[in-house]
């Protein structure tokens, strides 16, 4: 597949669903979409375009919690990142772990470290934190200081 096609295809497929498009051609593309569209977009990129899922990054910003889904187009030197912004009250997003088994662990990690609820996750247990870690304390949130 020609190099430009991948990006053009995503643009055509997502169309009006794209909230914001940031790019650093030729290698990096950051596409912000609404949270309800993530399953459809991930399905398209992973199943149709055969991209490799790298990981998810959760970032706590002053306005919202951002979840970044990084996909690699191996051989084309490109990483396409799908971004969803979640409001701090009601931090919920549909899980993509049933679609991509490789996303199961990272969603469990983001859930416990950033306090994001992944709906319909096949295995929503804790991954890293101890059993006796208090409920509702999320260590990667900005208000938690390092010495706490």
């Amino acid at each position: 597949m020609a190099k430009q096609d991948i990006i053009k295809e995503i643009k055509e497929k997502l169309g009006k669903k794209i909230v914001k498009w940031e790019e650093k051609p030729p290698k990096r593309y950051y596409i912000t979409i609404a949270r309800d569209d993530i399953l459809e977009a991930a399905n398209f990129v992973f199943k149709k375009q055969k991209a490799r899922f790298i990981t998810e990054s959760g970032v706590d910003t002053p306005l919202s919690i951002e979840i970044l889904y990084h996909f690699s187009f191996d051989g084309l030197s490109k990483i396409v990142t799908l971004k969803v912004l979640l409001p701090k009250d009601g931090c919920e997003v549909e899980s993509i772990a049933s679609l991509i088994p490789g996303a199961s662990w990272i969603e469990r990690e983001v859930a416990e470290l950033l306090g994001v609820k992944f709906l319909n996750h096949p295995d929503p247990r804790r991954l890293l934190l101890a059993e006796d870690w208090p409920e509702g304390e999320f260590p990667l949130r900005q208000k938690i200081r390092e010495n706490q």
Partner: protein
Amino acid sequence: MNRKTIIPIGPYHPLQEEPEFFELEVEGEKVIDINVHIGYNHRSIEKIAESKTFDQMVFLVERICGICSTSHPIANCNAVEDLAGIEIPERAKYIRSIVGELERIHSHLLWAGLAGHFIGYNTLWMWIWKYREPILEIFEAITGNRNHYAMMIPGGVRRDIKEEDIPFLLKGMDEAERKIEMVTKAALDDPVLAARLKGIGVLSREDAINYCALGPVARASGVAIDVRKDDPYAAYDLVDWQVITREEGDVFAKTVVRLLECFESIKIIRQCLEKLRTVKGEIAVKVKEIPPGEGIGRHEAPRGEVFHYVRSDGSNRPVRLKVRAPTYENLPTCKATVPGESIADAAIILAGIDPCYCCTERIVTINKRTGQRELNGQDLLRLSRKKTEKICKNMGRRNV
């Protein structure tokens, strides 16, 4: 009543150098399900990184792993350079590739030795580790350290490789190649290894893709992914080398991929060393300010792709660092490979993905009578300096 028999492996177990807990659900000798618990070693490095400057962050991420200790710094520097749009000098590219490939050789040999140990073949273990030692000495000669080389910095590398050392390094590569070739031939023809490893723990191509497997695990299942080819950085697009793949997906295929990759690494190092003779100049560019934005950096570590995501708000510290090590994606593949196999094979299948653990402690001598450590930190420092001096003397130069 539903009764299950669970065989626990871990969190502390002689087979594992690092704490992780496998629950094997068994029926007789056969494993029917596996459950993995991790988190015993969580050090919150991503959180600590938020309080470090960009230069300090490289040293912090170097501490993530003792075996692939240059993988995280390379990925991290790639991420910061992607964020700030920095192009590193050509000479630095070759040095980065040399350090990265030396690490791959020592790491693959370490794994091959441990794999021998896990199936009770200790001769192979001792033999391979003996040949791994000279690689660590080469490391000590060019970086000053056996592990945690502290060579990378955003904008380039911290130490140059001297012209007069190149013949010594080339000679080291020749010797390493000869020995690894001998071990590879012996290991791949060995009927014991074939009987224990062939057809065991097969990871199908579909599963490798769905579980997003990386590195030699994916390449042994016929998925030809390698960041060095797919998204070239450092000097990997300036030299000639091949991606090794196998179709079988069993533990034997993973062994073959790793051993053959050592030869590709030697090939890369040789070409880079030759280039260093002609490509002169700076080894790092000065990085003044990191602008606000986000950057992604990757490196093909011995175990697969290491991924770093860095976000900056324009200050001297990152707002967020996300690290994804290859074992994070490779370990869950045990759900696909272990069930259906026997308990005895579970250990080598789990080891087959080369889970990453630290092995940086060099020596501890304990007096049996008093129970005290004979050597303290200062003694170790003194001994390590003495050894470095000895290596330098053998190379015929005064200081590193």
